[in-house]
């Protein structure tokens, strides 16, 4: 891992990883530098494209002019999502869903989440409210209280299996064991579950979840689907694992668990970043750089009492007014003004007013993305990641 990379990507979230895949597929030499695991590990694993409205892809056109989706454009959004689906299929985790229609998936509170592309294990989560649902829970499972679901659906039942462990991680690991799975299936068969669908919290295996889900389905003769849980979220970890594997297969170098502590610049060009970690500092040199360090949650942006800073390159940050105006009063009304904070870029994803030529920005750190308001988290990250890769992969 040395020499000069064609592109160095800072931030290994959905946007950074998709940018890396796109660039590697163009034959570029790519490195990804990431301080820690990205937000997608905490997510449901579902790809929200545009949850506000019925037609995710078709709705992009009606977003405000400054929304980052417009930088990619509807065509490229579609192409990048196809690309994502292809990568995940390669990794044995095919996604389902229609880019022109949102779907509803059941949540642990018996409410629903609106999303677009879902992992195969959730493709049957879109059920009719009259249909019978049988919820399976696990003894003492953390943060999962099936009564919330059964009390919200008149036509629902629940059974509890003792997996011998109680965290999502440890239960999921058990499902990777053949004998455990067989024991579980024969227990299910003994329950005499009425005609309908079976809903299980998303812990039925790590990488083999899709097969496990199929097997239960076939053995029971019922449609089976997973309910995403609070973090640690297994479908989120599966998604991350799949993408990371895709990077490694493509020969992308990963510098993980390392934070950037200095940036070398010469004129309008960034030349290298230096990483702090265990032992000697590492210098990573590149011809171009992509900033994909995420929003506040991941630390790409950091707010102080009255300003917001971009933490790696100290780029100018768009700020939606003074702190009094950053938040709504209502916790449940998604879309606080602060969600607009971020980096403004031009059509080629270069930061405006920053006087750097070989830096491109993508993902939730972009200004005006309003991820919660529009429900466009992973979708926007995927689309802008691929679009920024295209922009920077073009010969300058």
């Amino acid at each position, binding site marked *: 891992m040395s020499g000069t990379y064609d592109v160095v990507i800072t931030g290994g979230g959905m946007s950074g990883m998709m940018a890396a895949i796109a660039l590697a597929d163009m034959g570029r030499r790519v490195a990804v530098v990431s301080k820690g695991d990205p937000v997608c590990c905490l997510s449901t694993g579902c790809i929200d494209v545009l949850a506000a409205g019925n037609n995710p892809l078709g709705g992009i056109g009606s977003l405000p002019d400054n929304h980052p989706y417009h930088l990619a454009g509807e065509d490229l959004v579609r192409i990048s999502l196809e690309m994502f689906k292809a990568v995940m299929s390669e990794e044995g985790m095919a996604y389902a869903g229609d880019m022109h229609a949102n779907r509803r998936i059941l949540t642990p509170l018996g409410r629903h989440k609106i999303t677009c592309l879902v992992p195969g294990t959730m493709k049957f989560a879109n059920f009719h409210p009259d249909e019978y649902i049988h919820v399976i829970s696990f003894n*003492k499972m953390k943060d999962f*209280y099936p009564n*919330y679901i059964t009390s919200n659906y008149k036509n629902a039942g629940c059974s509890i299996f003792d997996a011998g462990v109680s965290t999502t991680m440890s239960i999921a690991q058990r499902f990777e064991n053949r004998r455990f799975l067989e024991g579980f299936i024969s227990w299910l068969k003994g329950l005499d579950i009425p005609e309908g669908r079976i809903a299980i919290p998303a812990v039925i295996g790590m990488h083999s979840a899709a097969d496990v889900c199929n097997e239960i389905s076939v053995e029971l003769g019922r449609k089976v689907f997973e309910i995403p849980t609070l973090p640690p979220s297994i479908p989120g970890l599966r998604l991350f694992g799949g993408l990371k594997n895709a990077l490694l297969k493509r020969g992308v170098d990963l510098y993980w668990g390392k934070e950037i502590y200095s940036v070398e610049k010469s004129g309008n060009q960034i030349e290298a970043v230096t990483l702090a970690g265990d032992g000697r500092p590492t210098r990573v040199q590149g011809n171009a750089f992509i900033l994909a360090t995420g929003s506040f949650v991941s630390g790409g942006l950091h707010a*102080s009492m*009255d300003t917001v800073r971009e933490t790696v390159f100290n780029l100018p940050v768009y700020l939606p007014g003074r702190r009094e105006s950053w938040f709504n009063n209502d916790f449940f009304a998604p879309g606080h003004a602060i969600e607009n904070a971020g980096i403004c870029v031009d059509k080629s994803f270069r930061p405006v007013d920053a006087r750097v030529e070989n830096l491109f920005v993508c993902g939730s750190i972009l200004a005006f993305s309003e991820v919660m308001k529009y429900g466009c988290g992973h979708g926007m990250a995927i689309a802008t990641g691929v679009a920024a890769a295209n922009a920077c992969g073009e010969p300058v």
Partner: protein
Amino acid sequence: MIKTDVIIIGGGSTGCGIARDLALRNIPHCLVEKGDFAAGATGACHGLLHSGGRYAVNDSEAAAECISENMILRKIGVKCVEQTGGLFVRLPGDSKRFRDMFLKGCEETGIPTEVLSPSRALDLVPNLNQSLEEAIKVPDCSIDPFRLCMLNITSSQKRGGKIMTHNRVIDIIRERGRCVGVKVQDKSTSEVTEIRGRIIINAAGAWGNKIASMAGSGVPMTLSKGSLIITNHRLTNMVINRLRPSSDGDIIVPNEAVCLAGTTSITVNDPDESEVDPAEVDVIATQAQEMLPDFGSTRLIRTYAGVRPLLKANGGDDRKISRGFRIIDHENGMFSIMGGKLTTYRLMAEKISDKVVEAFGLKTKCRTAEIPLEGQEELSGYPLSKRLKTLENIVCECELVTADDVEKVATEIGTRHIGDIQHRTRLGMGPCQGGFCTYRALGIMQETGKMAPEESMRVLREFLQRRFKGIKPALWGDQLREEQLVESIYLGILGMEQEQ
């Protein structure tokens, strides 16, 4: 219908103190409180057991009361008072003349002081502003208001006192011009109960005028909102005051694992007006940072505000109003007790109980200053250390509260209110401010049949809304980061934005 001798309205420090005083004099009583104990100013206060120093220059009566009560409370309440000591620090530019008046006032009111050079002060509190001119040490303490109320109530309950929390007084029953009872309504069941008594004590703090007006009277008072902010660290082990005339943000009080900094003083019309303005937060944080520079880089986990029930002044600055208290005999069977401080709650209770005894033609003497607060044996000095032993099945990671703790409290007090659990276990008091653990605690209560799922969803919504109100004014840095996570979980994963 319930019959008793004395009806106490309000379960703040004053009401709880009165219940204990009457209990120790064997006078039957019933206390009604619309929320949990300490739901008003008491639970929203700064937690400073004043030495009196803050009032030494302008309000010698209040100062003298504070120091004598301070000395009593540290003796009778070892488990709710932490003897931190306090410093009044003088920074460059602060008036030397005020410092001289301060020392003189302390001497006249009997507040012991010790003048410390900068280096001696820095020995005691190493992260003080290094350029301080000097510091004056006084016997300030940190006090846990909620515990204080609970312990006072213990004495009452042991002697048959009737305590009704989550019951709001909705009317005062009058017969031939005299107040003979109250009607109270249960918050969860909406059931109305009538309570009859010979004397009614209005200890409703800032709501006192509302209560008095139900009986056709009034009490003159000024309502002064004060805001506070909580840090996620205990930045100092001593109380830090600014040595200058009272103003915004001049006191920092250590409290268990955190610090409380404040306050402000804004006249309001309604006792329920307790919104914190981001501008208040800025002022407090800036001022606190002058005394303790570390404050600037510390994570603020929540803001809150309370409304002080002050005696009525004729215009001018709320801060100049005496912090003394007054008893009003409405001469219709009702007494109101107004003003005062948490620090002087025992004295206030003593004085009004003396009135009751006199009205009943009795001669029993007050004993609250000699007998230690009962129930302290069961409390550990630091709840955290005790809990470290039973780390299984943690519900609240910040404060190490276990599922068993939640179940135990829910069973013991048969509560349906999440606030009751939070007060008694410290659940949700840490950096995440209940963002995760409240969901869990409610899940447990719902699974163990203590709450219906629909009810627990409603409580969760209410809690999240209230929590956000407290966090919002000081939302930046790591706290903002955590908030984005909490928001994504409740809205993005659980789908809670949809109304039921």
